[in-house]
């Protein structure tokens, strides 16, 4: 079962929600749709499900055109951000409902419901009503309903957003394991880069209705095609600093410049945007060619056992991602070390023209 989108667009009341998306998903693959809110993730999923029809383009399943086939005649499942279950049916009946509609043999229904419930660890609650369960258990019930039938496509529309942090991590891990043995296409929409990285598989980056990049998750992370993908696929967003490349050196401004290293020598002289990941800037030098930068602290944002340090110098702002809890005074002067061999370079159009050597090898 493969799913192919060919030049798919959706225009609603003159506004382009999905703009010429081409996408091919393989059977047994786990695909993450990464994009900010309003980037078109849900719209794209609705098109894949057959809930809406594309304004232009074709949708193929196994090479067969299904563009006009309504959702009722397709074999798909969907899990939503809200916990959607039948309110007056027990957990058991909720999970069984898709099988009953398919007129499955009663014994087989029972076997499958119990198996799926056990897999999602809700088997002790089969006799309860959904509202008597916690949020996490309600969402597990909704997931069980989606998984119990042999759908060809399973769509997850930000299913973990309404759960707390711990439950989210737990369910995320289980989810990935659940799909290992299946031969269906899983599509998972999220706004969080960390979630995409944790889930692995493939990632498609969506921005303003356009598909920016699609590929194995790690590859998209390390080799973003353009500046928007790079910014979107890192938390905190990648630092972007404008600079000029001359014959010998890279100049950020009159005072901050460094000699071209072997890595960056291939760049033709001109104006570039340089990207450096927040986790790559350090408080101590890691290598000889690190550039020492005097900066002032704006804010030290402590999150768990990590610190996001926002700093500025007269020409640009930077964010550092430090492990451990670091306390800093506002306006405190510190020195940070800028890794000149871990720079991404983007041209005037935002296309990536250079990525760090080590990232390229991976």
């Amino acid at each position: 079962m493969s799913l192919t989108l060919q030049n798919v667009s959706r225009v609603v009341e003159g506004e382009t929600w999905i703009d010429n998306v081409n996408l091919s998903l393989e059977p047994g693959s786990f695909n993450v749709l990464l994009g900010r809110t309003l980037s078109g993730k849900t719209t794209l999923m609705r098109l894949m499900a057959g809930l809406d029809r594309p304004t232009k383009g074709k949708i193929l399943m196994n090479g067969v055109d299904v563009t006009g086939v309504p959702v009722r005649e397709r074999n798909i499942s969907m899990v939503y951000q809200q916990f959607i279950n039948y309110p007056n049916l027990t957990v058991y009946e909720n999970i069984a409902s898709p099988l009953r509609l398919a007129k499955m043999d009663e014994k087989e229904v029972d076997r499958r419901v119990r198996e799926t419930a056990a897999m999602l660890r809700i088997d002790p609650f089969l006799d309860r009503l959904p509202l008597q369960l916690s949020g996490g258990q309600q969402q597990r019930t909704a997931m069980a309903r989606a998984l119990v039938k042999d759908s060809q496509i399973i769509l997850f529309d930000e299913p973990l957003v309404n759960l707390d942090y711990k439950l989210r991590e737990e369910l995320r891990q289980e989810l990935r394991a659940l799909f290992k043995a299946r031969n269906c296409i899983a599509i998972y929409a999220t706004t969080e880069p960390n979630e995409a990285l944790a889930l692995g598989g493939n990632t498609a980056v969506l921005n303003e209705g356009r598909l920016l990049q699609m590929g194995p998750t790690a590859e998209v992370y390390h080799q973003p095609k353009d500046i928007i993908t790079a910014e979107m696929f890192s938390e905190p967003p990648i630092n972007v600093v404008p600079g000029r490349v001359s014959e010998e050196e890279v100049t950020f401004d009159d005072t901050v410049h460094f000699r071209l290293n072997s890595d960056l020598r291939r760049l033709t002289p001109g104006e570039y945007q340089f990207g450096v990941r927040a986790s790559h800037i350090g408080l101590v030098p890691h290598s000889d060619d690190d550039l020492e930068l005097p900066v002032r602290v704006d804010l030290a944002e402590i999150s768990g056992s990590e610190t996001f340090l926002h700093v500025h110098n007269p020409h640009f702002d930077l964010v550092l991602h430090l492990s451990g809890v670091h306390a800093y005074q506002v306006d405190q002067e510190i020195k940070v070390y800028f890794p000149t061999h871990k720079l991404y370079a983007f041209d005037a159009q935002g296309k990536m023209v250079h990525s760090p050597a080590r990232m390229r090898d991976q």
Partner: protein
Amino acid sequence: MQTKVENNKAWFLVLPVFLIVAFSAIIPLMTVVNYSVQDIFDPYTRYFVGTEWFKQVMLDSRLHEALLRQFIYSFTILIIEVPLGICVALMMPTKGRGASLALILVAIPLLIPWNVVGTIWQIFGRADIGLFGAFMSSIGVDYNYASDPTDAWLTVVLMDVWHWTPLVALLCYSGLRAIPEVYYQAARIDQASRWAVFRYIQLPKLTNVLIIGVLLRFMDSFMIYTEPFVLTGGGPGSSTTFLSQSLVQQAIGQFDLGPAAAFSLVYFLIILLVCWVFYTTIMNMQKDK
């Protein structure tokens, strides 16, 4: 030693509520209780009769008939109005100008004063000048609500359905609007039928507004007075004389204040009892689920 300061200011804060409840409920009710245990001839001649009036009222066959009529009437209109209201709510458009237009059209009967409703139907049903009456006689049906008890009943029920179904419809409409769109979407993905969507999504989500709707309609219809009074005056004979009408006949027509007061109290207790039984039954049903 700690001295406790006495402060009675809180009583002043309770006072307004106390006064309102006293004047709106307790004092009028106590007046009725007062009448119900006395035989009053004129302001200076009165005798305490104990529960005499209550005994008389409870054994009065006219009241038994009115009570039976009242129950039949209330259940008939509930059986018609609740399903009909749900149907109307399901058919009302949800978006755009059609939605507001439908809301206004449906709400119109609710805005008409009760005695006007009675008058409208009184004219509407007349065979000589009324649209409905003329239509019935033109298709050869012998219809006359003033002389035929069945026709009178039909007209009274029809009038109530026309007047009050919109209330049930509006309640259900608001209940339906509160169901998130994703439920319908999920049902489509599950390949659920229209009936299954109604049975497993819409109806469970409507339960609460329906309880309110049924209670309101029951209480209101059980106390109905104005419309049948204007339309049929309780006739022909006493075929459409409901409880409140026989009460008024007794209290004002015959000026039997004592029996009328006893009757009022019994009437009040019946409504209270039926509503309480109804409410607790439904609440228990919900809990069991």
